[in-house]
């Protein structure tokens, strides 16, 4: 399924660039912690969240989010599509998965400009001790080509075909 776009605003062409953002956590070795966040919102039918920081995490296999967001979206997690235990921060958490829509917004947080796609999100109980959304491989990195550079202090999001167009079809040796 091709990502849909907002009909309300003229779409800025890809790539969409996102400057790294300072993390609310404290400094490490007296330096600010800058992380690769993109702005997303979650949608279920007529309900949507506000824009949220989504942490791009190439080491995560799924999109994970706080179940507080599911509650706000009116999602009944008792009718989940599957559940898995995840180990996060030395603790185990139960993620209950539902397929919903997500919107990617540009870095300036223009609320009416977005690219929308569908993905399975694992909602984790009481998981908002720090933030709300983690964007992993299945559902995010298989939908977009994401280039991150801490040197440039920015990440670029493009259509998923861009990787193959740039590097060719990568095959195992």
């Amino acid at each position: 399924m091709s990502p849909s776009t907002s009909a309300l605003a003229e779409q800025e062409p890809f790539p969409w660039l996102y400057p790294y953002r300072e993390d609310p956590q404290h400094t490490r070795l007296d330096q600010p912690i800058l992380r690769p966040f993109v702005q997303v919102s979650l949608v279920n039918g007529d309900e949507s969240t506000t824009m949220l920081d989504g942490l791009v995490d190439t080491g995560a296999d799924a999109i994970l989010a706080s179940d507080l967001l599911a509650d706000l979206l009116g999602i009944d997690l008792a009718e989940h599509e599957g559940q898995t235990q995840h180990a996060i921060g030395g603790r185990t958490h139960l993620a209950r998965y539902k397929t919903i829509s997500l919107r990617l917004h540009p870095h300036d947080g223009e609320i009416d400009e977005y690219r929308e796609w569908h993905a399975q999100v694992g909602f984790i109980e009481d998981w908002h001790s720090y933030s709300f959304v983690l964007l992993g491989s299945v559902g995010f990195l298989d939908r977009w080509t994401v280039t991150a550079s801490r040197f440039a202090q920015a990440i670029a999001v493009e259509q998923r075909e861009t990787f193959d167009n740039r590097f060719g079809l990568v095959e195992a040796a």
Partner: protein
Amino acid sequence: MEPIRTDFRGYEGQYVATDARTGKIVIADEDPRIVLEKAKGRNHVVVRGRVPHADEPIYVGLG
């Protein structure tokens, strides 16, 4: 690009939302629901998360 910086001092223990363009905190509350509700529908406002206290450990990712 220049990173978006935010001065989180004074907001420890609170959930915050910032202006996506400047990084300035525009909403803060200890209850995440209140921040999510106040931020809803506001252009350029993005909910960031909770500002930890100084004695809390640094998460590798979201923790």
